[in-house]
């Protein structure tokens, strides 16, 4: 068992090992799948963020561009009239006024004349201004001592570049402290010389709300940086990272990067704003981009781990269960294997080849045994010895292995005892004594033994508690049996023998109660009526048993077989010697027994309708032979048996006289001389002379320590 246990554990280990490998593969696959998914999802999310940032920036850019273009268009539209006013400087204010009035975005406008161009005035820069929220346009002059417009960037740069120029954003001190920028366009006179600069100031307040709306994500923020790296709108922060970002932005190119702000990674997208040299940026905290995604990834990971653990536990449980099941089924298989061997051994004990005596024409037999379990307690057996068929059928109380052991013992005893014993009664008695002596388990066997003389159909039998066999003669009947007790109940029991004669074509059917007590699904018995019906009709022994088996199987259906079922069918054919009968007379060595002999002969004579002279002469011959044996075979004062068997055929009578006394061959005695005269005739010697004269054949044998004298008389 210890070995078994180890085996069981190792199978669990093997399962666990397989299970672990399985789990690892599953985990790797799962992890790889989710990694790929993660990478693609992350990439997708980032692309989404990029797209959102860029599209918003593009939208903002478009708005800025519209304003810028609108402003430039308005200014360039007034270029020619501004040039014209060089000749009429007093009209300049009207031009600026109109620019401010006609373009809501333009807060202020001036035409600043290059100093010295006008002869009458050294500096001239009339300025129209409409403050936000006011519908009144003020008029001012920028040609003041403190302002000194010729040095202003918005004045110098367009002249230097000889092209329109957008100024760096600035806070206009005089114009309501708002962030402004100015577009300046150089104005040339008729000679093509730059004479003045026409400007339009626009407020950048709307940029703040525009950039402020670049909130792609809740905590994201936008930034607009001027050419010089100055923050025009959006978050202002002097951290090194933002400074370097502003520097990157002022390169005037598109870009995207990741920066660390206060310990958090941020995605940054930036793009230049057309014409202005400005650059716009959106800064998005990474955790917001990937926020919910990370959360989902985390949950997914937790679920994965949970799943793997569950898988592991499930596999382990299954492995244990399988190992256990396997152990149980191995155990069962082993047991079934052993039972199968037991069954084979049991079946090898009983004759199973049918027909069993193919060379004989006087007997047709078949037998069948169907145990309810693998092994059973039913038995049958048969064999032929000295032209006699010894057969038996038995049913051990109980079923299964214990019954099968008793069955084996019973069968061995039958073979052993019957091998040297001719009387069924003595065989049964001996078997009963052996079995009762060693019967500690109180099992018993119902048993029927028969000895059928194949020469003449004479059946001697002895029943020990078994069901009466059927005899199929002209009609179907039960063989009359004395019940007697089963074998093994009590030692020293007396069993009684019975006899019967089988005629040509008669048959015997022996069975165990597994037949009559076969149950169908409703627990109804097959019974004797069905048995008798199944026995009806003539066919070969083999076919007969098959038809009974079929009848039982049809009746029982799917119900489980409740008891062992055994049948033995013996068809006595005896076509070799029909009409032969045998009689037996047992005598002992007392001369008075001779009177029994004459009765015996008288009976035969009467049955065979012999005439009285023949009967007398036969009587005389037998008396002479028997007298010889009675008087001389055994020593004086001892008792000895003298047996006379008569075999009666229609055309002859055969007598066999047997004794166990000293060897003596009466046929070897000298033949009496009946021609002698009175004086010479010996007084004795006539007995054997008469036997020889009356009988047609007389011969003597010494056999098995016995004198056997056979005498035949033709009739």
């Amino acid at each position: 068992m210890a070995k078994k246990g180890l085996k069981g554990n190792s199978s669990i280990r093997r399962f666990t090992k397989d299970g672990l490998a399985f789990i690892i593969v599953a985990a790797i696959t799962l992890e790889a799948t989710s990694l790929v998914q993660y990478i693609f999802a992350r990439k997708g999310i980032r692309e989404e963020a990029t797209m959102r940032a860029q599209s918003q920036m593009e939208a903002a850019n478009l708005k800025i561009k519209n304003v810028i273009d609108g402003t430039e268009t308005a200014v360039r539209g007034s270029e020619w009239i501004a040039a014209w006013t060089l000749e009429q400087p007093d009209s300049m204010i009207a031009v600026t006024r109109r620019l401010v009035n006609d373009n809501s975005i333009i807060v202020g406008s001036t035409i600043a004349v290059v100093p010295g161009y006008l002869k009458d005035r050294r500096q001239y820069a009339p300025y129209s201004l409409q403050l936000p929220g006011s519908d009144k346009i003020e008029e001012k002059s920028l040609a003041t001592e403190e302002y000194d417009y010729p040095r202003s960037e918005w004045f110098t740069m367009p002249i230097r570049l000889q092209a329109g120029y957008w100024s760096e954003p600035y806070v206009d001190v005089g114009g309501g402290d708002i962030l402004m920028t100015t577009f300046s366009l150089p104005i040339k006179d008729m000679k093509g010389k730059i004479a003045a600069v026409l400007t339009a100031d626009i407020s950048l307040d709307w940029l703040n709300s525009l950039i402020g709306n670049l909130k792609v994500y809740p905590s994201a923020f936008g930034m607009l940086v001027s050419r010089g790296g100055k923050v025009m709108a959006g978050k202002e922060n002097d951290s090194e990272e933002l400074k370097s970002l502003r520097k990157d932005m002022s390169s005037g190119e598109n870009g995207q990067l990741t920066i660390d702000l206060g310990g958090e990674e941020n995605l940054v997208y930036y793009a230049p704003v057309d014409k202005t040299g400005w650059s716009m940026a959106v800064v998005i905290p990474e955790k917001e981009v990937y926020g919910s995604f990370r959360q989902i990834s985390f949950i997914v990971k937790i679920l994965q781990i949970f799943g793997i653990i569950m898988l592991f536990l499930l596999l382990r449980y299954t492995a244990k269960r399988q190992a256990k099941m396997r152990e149980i089924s191995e155990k069962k298989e082993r047991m079934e294997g052993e039972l199968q061997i037991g069954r084979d051994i049991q079946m090898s004990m009983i004759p199973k080849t049918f027909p069993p005596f193919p060379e004989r024409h006087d007997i047709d037999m078949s037998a069948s045994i169907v145990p309810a379990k693998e092994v059973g307690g039913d038995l049958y057996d048969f064999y032929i010895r000295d032209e006699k068929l010894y057969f038996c059928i038995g049913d051990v109380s109980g079923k299964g292995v214990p019954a099968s052991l008793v069955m084996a013992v019973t069968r061995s005893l039958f073979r052993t005892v019957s091998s040297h014993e001719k009387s069924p009664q003595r065989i049964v008695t001996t078997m009963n004594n052996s079995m009762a002596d060693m019967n500690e388990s109180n099992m018993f066997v119902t048993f029927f033994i028969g000895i059928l003389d194949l020469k003449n159909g004479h059946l001697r039998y002895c029943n020990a508690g078994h069901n009466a066999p059927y005899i199929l003669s002209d009609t179907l009947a039960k063989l009359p049996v004395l019940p007697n007790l089963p074998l093994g109940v009590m030692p020293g029991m007396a069993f009684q023998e019975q006899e019967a004669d089988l005629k040509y074509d008669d048959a015997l059917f022996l069975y165990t109660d597994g037949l009559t007590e076969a149950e169908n699904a409703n627990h109804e018995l097959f019974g004797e009526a069905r048995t008798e019906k199944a026995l009806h009709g003539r066919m070969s022994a083999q076919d007969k048993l098959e038809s009974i088996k079929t009848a039982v199987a049809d009746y029982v259906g799917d119900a489980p077989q409740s008891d062992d079922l055994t049948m033995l069918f013996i068809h006595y054919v005896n076509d070799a010697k029909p009409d032969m009968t045998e009689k037996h007379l047992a005598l002992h060595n007392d001369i008075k027994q001779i009177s029994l002999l004459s009765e015996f002969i008288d009976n035969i004579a009467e049955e065979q309708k012999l005439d009285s002279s023949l009967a007398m002469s036969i009587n005389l011959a037998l008396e002479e032979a028997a007298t010889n044996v009675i008087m001389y075979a055994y020593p004086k004062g001892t008792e000895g048996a003298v047996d006379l068997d008569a075999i009666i055929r229609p055309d002859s009578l055969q007598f066999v006289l047997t004794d166990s006394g000293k060897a003596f061959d009466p046929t070897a005695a000298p033949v009496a001389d009946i021609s002698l005269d009175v004086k010479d005739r010996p007084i004795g010697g006539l007995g054997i002379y008469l036997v020889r004269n009356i009988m047609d054949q007389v011969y003597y044998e010494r056999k098995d320590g016995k004198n056997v004298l056979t005498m035949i008389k033709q009739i």
Partner: protein
Amino acid sequence: MEVNISKQNGITTVTLVGRLDTPASPEVEKALEPVHENATGTIVLDCKGLEYISSSGLRIFLSIRKSAAAKGGRVIVKDINNDIRSVFMMTGFLNLFEIQ
């Protein structure tokens, strides 16, 4: 088995009735011992009632016949049935006895 012995006019008549088989022989033999003394004369064995005879009975017949032969007497077997006659024939007794 019945045996009767009577004498008349010097003739000894033995009447045998029944079965003279082996068990019956010793008694018959004993009963007939006196007859041997009359073997000088005529002995008639009346077998009218004799049903059966075995070799032991034949031995008794033969011993009487031997006594008569030795003493010059005469033995007459009277009225034997056919079955016994055939036994006599079989054994040569027909030649030894005077059968009437």
